[in-house]
């Protein structure tokens, strides 16, 4: 997709007009695409020895995440519990019984209002959450690429008329379906952005504007690997040969749609996890149940989460993420 065709921020969602949103043609089309995308996801994993589990919704802790999003508290018989921002800890724990597993997981992240205009953030969203025991980062990247390709092909095959009705050109997926995925490191991505005049910090996540620039420049999906420590969760393992570099990745869609997937090889060593928790400002005491499992021994693993709504937006080519959610909750906007 060229710069001229880039998705704009889109029309503004009016929370007081949820009824209109629910009967809109685009909403109906997006839900049909979502339904087929979910079918494609399950179809892909069933043929490859995965088990689908249903994720927990609350827990004593949740993924502390990053970038200023906060978890919501619930009172659980007098104990402060969290709604899941992601079920990463449960995925890892489940490996004991299910060495290859996936969830279609609902997540809640109260994003800072500054993400309201990215077109890529919702407070309530779903992730296709995958974890594979004994896998390397490269295995997880292959699985993510395979999953995306399979789902795109399935959706193109089953609802071509819906995509056509949305004006989504099949050609937008030509490179992807040809199996061409690029890859660069975080350092390379930072260098490219800085060379183009974007002030990207080398120690931090690629910021929202930077991610959009890189996504717009691409004509096929690409991986960004090797994020610096301090930009990601404590569960992403650090490269033993390159201190400060994490064995993780993002998968970025072309055309300005941005990040679809975040994943990594997981840290499985107890002492390292405790130290990494401190490095991310966390109090290890609150992760008691997880650390006990870790002490007993959890399988090494790699995995990822693919944002379902981001995937559907990429498939439909719609302007903003709220258009592919039936009940959108935008950052900073109080909605029903």
């Amino acid at each position, binding site marked *: 997709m060229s710069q001229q065709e880039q998705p704009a921020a889109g029309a503004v969602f009016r929370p007081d007009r949820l009824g209109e949103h629910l009967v809109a043609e685009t909403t109906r089309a997006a839900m049909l695409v979502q339904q087929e995308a979910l079918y494609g996801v399950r179809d892909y994993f069933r043929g490859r020895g995965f088990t689908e589990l249903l994720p927990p919704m609350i827990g004593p802790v949740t993924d502390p995440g990053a970038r200023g999003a906060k978890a919501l508290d619930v009172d659980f018989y007098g104990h402060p519990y969290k709604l899941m921002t992601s079920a990463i800890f449960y995925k890892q724990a489940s490996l004991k019984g299910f060495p290859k597993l996936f969830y279609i997981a609902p997540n809640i992240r109260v994003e800072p209002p500054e993400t309201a205009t990215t077109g890529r953030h919702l407070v309530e969203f779903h992730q296709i959450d995958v974890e594979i025991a004994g896998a390397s980062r490269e295995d997880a990247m292959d699985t993510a690429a395979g999953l995306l390709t399979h789902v795109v092909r399935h959706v193109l095959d089953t609802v071509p008329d819906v995509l056509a009705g949305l004006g989504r050109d099949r050609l937008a997926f030509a490179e992807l379906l040809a199996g061409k995925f690029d890859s660069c490191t975080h350092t390379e991505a930072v260098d490219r952005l800085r060379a183009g005049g974007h002030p990207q910090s080398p120690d931090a996540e690629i910021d929202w504007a930077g991610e959009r620039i890189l996504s717009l420049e691409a004509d096929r999906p690409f991986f960004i690997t090797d994020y610096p*420590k301090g930009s990601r969760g404590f569960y992403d393992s650090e490269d033993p040969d390159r201190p400060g570099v994490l064995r993780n990745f993002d998968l970025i869609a072309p055309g300005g749609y941005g990040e679809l997937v975040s994943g990594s090889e997981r840290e499985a060593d107890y002492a390292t996890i405790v130290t990494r928790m401190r490095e991310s400002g966390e109090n290890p005491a609150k992760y008691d149940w997880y650390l006990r499992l870790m002490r007993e021994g959890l399988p090494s693993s790699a995995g990822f989460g693919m944002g379902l709504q981001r995937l559907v937006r990429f498939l439909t080519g719609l302007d903003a993420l709220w258009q592919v959610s039936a009940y959108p909750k935008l*950052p900073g906007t109080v909605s029903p």
Partner: protein
Amino acid sequence: MTRASAPGFPEAQVRQRAREGVAAVFAPLETYGDQLFGAGADQPPAPDGIADDLDRAVVAPPVFMPRRLEKLIDLGREPLHDDVDLATVIGGFSSPLPVYVSAFGSTRAAGADTGIAVSRQAGRLGIPMVIGENLVPVTGYRRSEKDRSPILERLRAYAGECPPGLGGVVVQQSTEDADSEVWNLVYSDPSVAGLLDSGRLGFELKTGQGAKPGLGGMTVVDPAEAARLDTRFAVRELPGTGGWLRCATPGTFTEEILRQQVRFMRNNFPRARVWVKFHPGRDVAAAAVTAWRAGSDAVTVDGAQGGTGWAPRAFLGRAGLTLGECLRRIGAPEGCLLASGRIWEGGRAVRALAMGATAVGLGRAALLAVDEDPEHGLIRLVEALALEARMLISAVGKYHSRLLDREDLWWPAPTAQPHPVDDPTVPTLERTP
């Protein structure tokens, strides 16, 4: 007025300034012409063990003043003390004075009304203010309209008074606060958007306490409060007193943990300033350099002095470096250095600035000042400090606080030698009484 007290602190002087403002900088007018003044008689000696060598230093004006000549040329007239420019940037925030308000904890002495009064006056002055740790785990964040969260009340009180383009609020988070995700709560709170949008919100990583270096925060609570806080803090009974001690953990830091925590703050809260506060640790120079190089906008060193919480007697004046020794070990700072600990008047403030600090923090002094006068106490105290600072700085022939230098100080007694910044392992020097 609640009659808060602070034994060992020059409370009477602070209260006098809170009442009288700049008038208190001078001796009573009626003594003019009759009494001769000299050091010692007019200034009560600091109690043993609390004085630090920063208080022994003497501001030493030169005779020849090339900087004064520069100012004379600039102005086209002889400069005066009120030509001294004190405006500066403190940890990323514009401030009319090299002064900010340090954090008070969650203790009673820094209770709701006092905290609000301090916030309002700091806002009116346009100087940055730090909001203390443990407020959220102790008192909660968003409560009913009637019973509002102190942290939000202080933020609103400050923002309501602060002139545009000046000041900023810095919210601390310690280990227990991290459980309550204080920074996330504040960062996404709509009522804080004004400060965030104008670049006037910061977060301070607190790694230690000035009054009890190496320990976490401590407050005394009653049995009911102890039971309520039991899930969030370690709570220990104080035998024979009926009271309970609520202990916060100091948190565990290594060089790598500190570096990564600062990076995490920058990554997660890109629109907030990042401050780091250290207790007066013997490796404070290495710690400060680590924080600056990881990208923190300010490093605060809290000299072993006092605080609002509870501290074991064995610690008071007997654990931790003095503020002067901290500043000496840090040497020429790589970034914005903030100093707090027993600052209340212009003399100690100027000495700290000459030792490399960009600004000084008012802690107990600010509390006492608003306790004396909730409407104007802090403002008068700061005005008095600023006047003294201007007079002292002009006396050394300089006209901006950032031009102060170690050459402007003289230590009359033998004192510790400066340590190079890259040698964090030097032992603590014995303090002279």
